[in-house]
């Protein structure tokens, strides 16, 4: 293996680049999966979709569905952004209105 010329050789002490505090903060944030109400979706369908995607009990799914119905939206899952995105897409593929947002 050819050696690098002295001017581009690696320093003997490798200094890690500083991560800005904002980058760290973004990575550590918790994200909410939010399901929004719509006027046409049957309630039972919402319960089935929640049970199938999140694996919650029927009782918990019914509670979440009722919150969507009465309050216009409900947080159905919270956690890391990648998983929140994945859950959100699965809910959207099942035909419900769903987004993600930073937990407040």
């Amino acid at each position, binding site marked *: 293996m050819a050696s690098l010329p002295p001017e581009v050789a690696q320093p003997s002490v490798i200094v890690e680049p500083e991560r800005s505090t904002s980058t760290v903060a973004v990575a550590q944030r918790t994200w909410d999966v939010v399901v929004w109400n719509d006027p046409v979706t049957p309630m*039972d369908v919402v319960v089935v979709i929640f049970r199938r995607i999140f694996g919650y009990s029927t009782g918990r799914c019914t509670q979440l569905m009722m919150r969507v119905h009465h309050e216009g939206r409900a947080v159905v899952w919270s956690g890391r952004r990648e998983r929140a995105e994945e859950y959100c897409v699965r809910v959207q593929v099942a035909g419900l209105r769903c987004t993600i947002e930073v937990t407040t």
Partner: protein
Amino acid sequence: MARLFTRQRGGGVVVRLNELGRSLVLDAARRVAAAERGEESVWAALLASPVDPSRADDPLVTLGRQRDMASNAELVVLTAGEDLLTDAEAWAWLSTLQVALRGLADEHAVTDEDALAAAPPDVHERVQALQTLLFSLASCL
């Protein structure tokens, strides 16, 4: 009234739809599939709903979602004449009919209960027909 879908003891969902019901399912699935190809502009917007409204979505996420919706719709087109669905096929039916219901509502600006009540009779009828199918199918899943 006879149930439109029933769960079979050994697994799977029995379909008891007449020709009119099956044509409704087929039409809904074809429109969802067409939306994925960009041929149904109003419904295409539904398929492009943002995941995170505060910033542009990752194109791979958008493509993945559209691919999954289209796969479900194509599976429904393939099985629209079947009398017995596997659980995976029944889930594809539920997802596709639900996407179609939302597409129909968006297309006719049905944003709340009042707008639904004021919708033209044919739209109201199609919304109710899709709701009936979904309600019955949900009871089997």
